[in-house]
């Protein structure tokens, strides 16, 4: 009895020293589907590789507004060792001094250059792109078939796409619409890039009265004419992917995220994907590249372990797995010829259009400038006002420019 007790105590002591040697790396990221996906990656790839190093990895999703939550955690010193860092809000986080520059820590060579650029400030790289997304034209094949209108294609221009949408609407009548238009810079800006507009001039100011921007703005809002285009709110949806899912709207301009949504919410919908149409005048396409990176907390106590975790999460094996599961588009250049992208099912075809979109025409990161997310508000307000018919395009843009000036002079 006594011996057993001693043995038990010994075992307990051994176990506790082992636990003390164990390093835990905490990862912060989005809520929603991400806990399942990252949890899967951790179990499949990270834990087996790091078991011998006694490194344990946990994923803690941040509910609600990710940027606000991460800000609070960083300010309080409670943020994870490794976390998601959205490219569009990079500047605000770099200014905190809490993001570890990765130069000399991680190799950036294997990643798509424009993605590295999106995470570089003053020659320092602050994150490695986890994956990326661009926009493509997603269309409901059945509606186009029924209306006897050819599908949107990679050769479409602004006008030819508009004609197709108008014809679909004409053929199908009141209960159907050509396209869903969310009053959002993130769905309209790509047209302005194609027309030759730059979000920021050399002094960092934004000109919304630039003829190129005005032309793109008018094209986008003009799609709403005669109810060919409707806002998602008009059919009780909160994004244009939701519109496509209802089967009553022929086209939505969205990214690869729509694949999972349609799989779950409209499994029988037959859809195709095409590149964003070219501007008739410049002959170019425009596109956004949306990306989220993996960053390391400058205050981490386990820099070496955190670096190991980051390297595994961005490794070719992990990215290939994520791509083949149809979860995201990989950020490594070496995966651009992956067999998955040559498949013909709707999801893979979508991935291909999204992947190609990143390298065709004027592609700019989805980015708000140094003053943060409030930058898009004047643009979105103007889009909403014109799409709902409250204001003329000229009035709305004039007001937006005035608001933009006040904002940028703050």
């Amino acid at each position, binding site marked *: 009895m006594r011996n057993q007790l001693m043995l038990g105590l010994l075992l307990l002591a051994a176990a506790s020293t082992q636990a003390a040697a164990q390093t835990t790396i905490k990862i912060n990221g989005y809520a929603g589907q991400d806990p399942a996906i990252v949890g899967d990656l951790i179990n499949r790839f990270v834990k087996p590789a790091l078991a011998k190093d006694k490194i344990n990895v946990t994923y803690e999703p941040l509910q609600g*507004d990710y*940027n*606000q939550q*991460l*800000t*609070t955690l*960083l*300010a309080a010193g409670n943020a994870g060792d490794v976390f998601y860092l*959205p490219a569009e*809000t990079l*500047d*605000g*986080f*770099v*200014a*905190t*001094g*809490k993001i570890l520059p990765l130069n000399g820590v991680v190799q950036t060579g294997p990643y798509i250059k424009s993605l590295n650029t999106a995470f570089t400030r003053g020659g320092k790289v602050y994150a490695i792109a986890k994956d990326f997304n661009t926009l493509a034209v997603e269309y409901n094949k059945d509606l186009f078939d029924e209306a006897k209108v050819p599908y949107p294609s990679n050769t479409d221009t602004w006008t030819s796409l508009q004609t197709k949408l108008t014809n679909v609407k004409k053929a199908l009548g009141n209960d159907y619409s050509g396209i869903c238009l969310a009053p959002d810079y993130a769905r309209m800006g790509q047209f302005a890039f194609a027309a030759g507009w730059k979000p920021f001039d050399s002094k960092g100011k934004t000109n919304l009265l630039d003829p190129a921007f005005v032309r793109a703005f008018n094209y986008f809002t003009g799609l709403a004419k005669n109810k060919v285009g409707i*806002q998602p*709110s*008009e*059919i*009780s949806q909160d994004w244009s992917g939701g519109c496509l899912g209802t089967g009553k709207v022929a086209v939505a301009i969205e990214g690869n995220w729509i694949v999972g949504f349609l799989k779950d919410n409209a499994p029988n919908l037959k859809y195709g994907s095409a590149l964003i149409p070219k501007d008739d005048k410049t002959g170019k396409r425009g596109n956004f590249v949306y990306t989220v990176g993996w960053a390391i907390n400058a205050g981490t106590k386990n820099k070496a372990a955190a670096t190991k975790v980051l390297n595994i999460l961005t490794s070719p094996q992990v990215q290939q797995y994520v791509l083949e599961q149809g979860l995201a588009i990989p950020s490594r250049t070496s995966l651009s010829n992956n067999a998955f992208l040559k498949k013909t099912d709707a999801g893979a075809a979508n991935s291909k259009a999204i992947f190609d979109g990143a390298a065709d025409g004027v592609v700019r990161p989805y980015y708000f400038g140094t003053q*943060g*997310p*409030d930058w898009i*508000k004047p643009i*979105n*307000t103007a889009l*909403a*006002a014109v799409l*709902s018919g*409250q204001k003329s395009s000229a009035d709305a843009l004039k007001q937006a420019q005035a*608001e933009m000036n*006040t904002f940028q002079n*703050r």
Partner: protein
Amino acid sequence: MFKKGQSATAYLFLAPFLITTLVFFFYAFGRAIYYSFTDFNLFNTPHLIGLKPYVDVLGDSLFRRALANTLVFAVIVTTLQTILSLLMAVALNNKIKGMGFFRSAWYMPSITSSVVITLIFLWLFQRRGVANYVITQLQMYQPYILTVMGVLIVVQIVQVLFERSRQMPAGWFDPALAAVSALIAVAVTVVLAFMGILQARDVPPFDFQYFADVWLSIGGVQVLSIPLLVIIIQNTFTTIPTLMLFFLAGLQNIPGTLYEAADIDGATPFEKLMNVTVPMLRPVTFYVITVGLIGTMQMFDQVAVIGAAAPQSTLITLAYYVYINTFKAGTAPVNMAAAGAIILALIILVMVFIQRRFFPSEASV
């Protein structure tokens, strides 16, 4: 006051409250004042930079919009909720059967979470929401409604004139005659509908966006936005019952003899309300207005819930301005947020002071 040893015990019992007040009010307030004079951005070591944050805040058009929205909101809501809750209290102070039910039913909105009510209002006032649906239905069935109303008025006039021609003292709103008129009006409408003369109109769905950048202007100055108007309706709806409770309690203390005396003098119900009830309730009214002003000046939750569903400038209030300047992505102008909060506190202080100065609460009795 205390015997020896008692004061220590008293402080021990008070400690939880004293400590929370010290930490979360006095300490936080002191820190906010300090930050409002520094260049603090949540991550740096603060350095004193004098009044610059105040100058920045006052020069920020978003702050001025927030200030205007807050003042408009506070004045309208406080006025509406005070008047309506008083009327409701008077109505519920009568002795009617089932009064307990009405009292609890009318109190319901106050005990429901304001976040839930805001979400419900967000749905009511969606583009395809109940508000627009009801308006569409009213427009569709307008012929029926107009027929009922028209026939009712005509029949009522005819009846009253007939009664008067027989030298009977009939008022224009005589309820007995009105009931007959209503029955005839409905009957006529039903007959006309069956004969196919009356038909529902085919109207397009009423499509008003309540959460858009639409303003009611006076002389070209944007005064009140439609989204804020929705919140005003909602806020009044949810706060009336609580304030009504205060008035109800106050009404119990008014001696019935005053009303009897007024009755003997031949006062109408309205005169009794204005000359007995309102003056007697003055201390309660003072309290209700003070609580109302402070509450509305600090309004935050409804705006936060609606968030990006409406353009920011239409809804922003001072409390929300403080919030969005503190929690951004990474570094944030916390010094400006603190300066804004101090200005808000000063405004409330001044408002309550003015109210105390000009509307003394102890004037009655």
